C-alpha cells in the first residue's frame, strides 16, 4: 500500500469498519509513514472537534413558543393527559 492507496482507504480505517486484511495493510503503511499517521490523527481530531463543538443556544423567546406548541399538540393527541 502506498500513500495514494491509503488515502482512498482512509474512510474505512477512520470508521474502523473495514476488513482485517485492509487494517493490516493500513497499519503496516502507517508504521513506516509518519505523514500518513499524522493525517489519520488529524482527521480523527477534526471529527472529535466538530462533535464537541458548541451547541448553539436556543433563544429564550423561542423556547416559550416551542413549549406551548408542544403542549397544544400533546393535548390534541392525549386529551386526558396532564400537561
Amino acid at each position: 500500500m502506498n500513500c495514494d492507496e491509503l488515502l482512498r482507504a482512509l474512510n474505512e480505517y477512520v470508521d474502523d469498519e473495514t476488513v482485517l486484511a485492509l487494517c493490516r495493510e493500513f497499519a503496516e503503511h502507517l508504521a513506516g509513514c509518519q505523514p500518513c499517521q499524522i493525517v489519520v490523527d488529524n482527521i480523527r481530531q477534526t471529527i472529535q472537534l466538530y462533535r464537541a463543538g458548541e451547541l448553539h443556544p436556543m433563544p429564550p423567546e423561542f423556547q416559550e413558543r416551542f413549549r406551548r406548541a408542544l403542549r397544544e399538540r400533546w393535548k390534541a393527541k392525549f386529551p386526558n393527559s396532564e400537561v
Partner: protein
Amino acid sequence: MTDTPRAVDSSVDDQPATGDQRQRWLIEKARTGDFTAFEMLVQELEPRVYRLAWRMLRQSHDAEDVTQQTFLSVIEHLEQYRGEATVAAWVLRIAANHALKLLRRRRGMMVTSWESGRGGDNEIASSLPHPEVIAPWRETPADLAERTEIRRLIDEALIELDEKYRLVFLLRDVEGLSVRETAELLGLSEANVKVRLLRARLQLRERLTRVLGDESRRAIPEHSHPPPPAEGNKV
C-alpha cells in the same frame, strides 16, 4: 390513540440512568401519554436537533422552525419508533428530513447539489486532493472546543465546504448516522456518501490543520514509498 395519563416517577428503580436506554424508556413512558417523560426527552435532544438544523440551514429562524417541526413530528409518530436505531438517531433523521425540505424549498424545484451524482462513486477518489499541511495539532479537540475563536473557525470551515460535502459530514460524522441512513436521507448511493465524506474530511482537516497544526513538527508528505518488505524478511 392512548389517553391514559401517567406521570414519570423519577424515584423508580427501573429508570435507566443515561444514554439511549434512558431515552427508550422515556419514549415508552411518553407513549402512555406521559407528558413529563416527553418533556425530558425533548430536553435531552433539543440541543443536538437545533445544532444540526442550524449547521444545515445557517439561519436561527429556520433552525427554530425545524426544531419545532421535529418534535411535533415525534409526538405524531411516537408509536412508529421501532427501536432499530437509537432514539437520538431516529429523532435526528426526522430533523434532517425537515431541514432538507426547507433547503429544497429555498432552491425551488431545482435539483439540489447534494442530490446530483447519485449514479455511484462517479466522483471517485482518483482526483482526491493530497494533504498539504501535515502537522500534529498543538492542543486536543476537547481543549480547543472550549475556545470562542476556535468555535468560529470550525463554523467558518464548515461554511466554506460545498453543501453536498457539508451535509454528508454533518449527518455521518457529527451526528453519527450510519452511511446507509445518510444515503437514504440524501437520496444518494452509499458509495457516493463515502466519497463525499472522504472529501469533506480531507478538506476540513486541511483547513483546520493550517491554523491548529504545530509548525515546528510539520512533516513533509512522501508520496513514493519503497514496497513493504516481503513476508519472510519481517522481524
